[in-house]
């Protein structure tokens, strides 16, 4: 084998390992591996090395002190988004500043009470049927007016899933719905009954839809399927064998139905929609 062939082979091995071959290239490569045990063995060694790097040199969490210093670089600014019912927003996580002026503090508390009252009530009372949906709508509105609809911004399922998996206890597969017109934009953690639940955020034109995944038993008292309307937002619920889902969106009912249909098809291995 010439040096050039050897180079080519090594580059393709790495590209295959990193998922960088296109569909045709990766099928061809799989065929070659079947016919060439040496190539397959090389691939296994390379994969073992890559896995070992991920295991022993994982991404580290930034120290809280650093996160606080970064958060302090920008004071919460007045929201410019028109749908906000209030002129100022306190993002709830990390970004709260202790050194803001007393005036701003007073204004913020007033706004907090006004904008989040319903959400906080829902947090404190056990989530009954309506409370769960109310809570998730509040969460959706809060995230939207904070200009922070997700904590991890990525259209890459393989980025969002591990991020959520380290922060929540349930984690379903993340469907790729971009072909159906609903690209993934990120994920965030929603607290339901004091337990973190993963929420996936998809976009559709100018609208967002947030899908919260819950253990079946938690959502069971949340009511049946179908779409309801709370404060002008549409809420859809459904379940598959493993998890229950609640989707909150500012898009219209028809678009939300299409989204739910696409999501269920993608989640079901047979391609058939899951049970209602």
């Amino acid at each position, binding site marked *: 084998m010439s*040096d050039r062939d*050897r*180079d080519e082979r*090594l*580059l393709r*091995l*790495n*590209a295959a390992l*990193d998922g*960088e071959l296109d569909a045709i290239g990766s099928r061809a490569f799989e065929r070659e591996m079947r016919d060439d045990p040496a190539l397959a063995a*090389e691939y296994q*060694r*390379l994969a*073992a*090395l*890559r896995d*070992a*790097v*991920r*295991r*022993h*040199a*994982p*991404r*580290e*969490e*930034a*120290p809280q*002190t*650093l*996160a606080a*210093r*970064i*958060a302090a*670089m*920008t*004071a919460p*600014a007045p929201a*410019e988004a028109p749908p906000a019912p209030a002129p100022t927003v306190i*993002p709830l996580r*990390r*970004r709260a500043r202790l050194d803001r002026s007393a005036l701003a503090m007073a204004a913020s508390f007033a706004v907090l009470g006004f904008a989040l009252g319903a959400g906080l009530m829902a947090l404190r009372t056990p989530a009954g049927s309506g409370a769960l949906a109310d809570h998730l709508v509040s969460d959706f509105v809060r995230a939207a007016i904070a*200009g*922070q609809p*997700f*904590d*991890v*911004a*990525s259209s*890459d399922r*393989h*980025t969002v899933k591990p991020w959520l998996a380290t922060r929540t206890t349930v984690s379903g597969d993340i469907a790729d719905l971009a072909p159906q017109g609903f690209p993934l934009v*990120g994920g965030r953690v929603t607290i339901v009954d004091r337990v973190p639940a993963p929420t996936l955020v998809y976009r559709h034109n100018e609208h967002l839809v947030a899908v919260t995944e819950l253990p079946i038993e938690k959502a069971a008292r949340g009511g049946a399927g179908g779409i309801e309307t709370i404060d002008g937002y549409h809420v859809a619920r459904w379940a598959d064998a493993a998890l229950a889902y609640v989707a909150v969106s500012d898009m219209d009912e028809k678009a939300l139905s299409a989204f739910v249909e696409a999501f269920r098809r993608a989640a079901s291995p047979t391609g058939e929609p899951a049970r209602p």
Partner: protein
Amino acid sequence: MRGSTAEQRFREIVPPLLDDAYSLAKWLSQSPTDAEDIVQDAALRALQALSTVSVDRPKPWFLAIVRNAAMTFMARNRRKTLAYAGDMTDLDALDPREGDDAAPNPEQALIALEDGERLRKAIADLPPPFLETLVMRDINGLTYREIAEATETAIGTVMSRLARARAMLAKSLRTES
């Protein structure tokens, strides 16, 4: 996002990427305290830049700033330099010997992989261009295209650096046992 201020966009983009930024800075500087300074400097640069630029892909964009901040920091503080002193042309040619993966004893090679301390040292000893490429791929999870964007190199260069980085790792794990 249209019509939002630099500060708003900063709050959307930077906090979710802090773990990635810190991990990259820590590998490049080999120091947890330097890494904090580097990320803070990078965040300031990002905040300034956001008043004039719009960002399509936040992750490679911010990690490029972290990388550049790390280079500045290392140069200023006369730490181990991040610039590669050798000839850049030979850097990107693959060394066929490194690709020669004839491990005498595959089991030993596997055991070496599970020695986390040794593996981390082998990664840290990679020359900077290989180190940053490996970290951005396997720790930050960037695609080849995003690494090319973040390091201002061609995709072909990213590919050969990554292949060489992994070959060097495999080799150093074999020889140091």
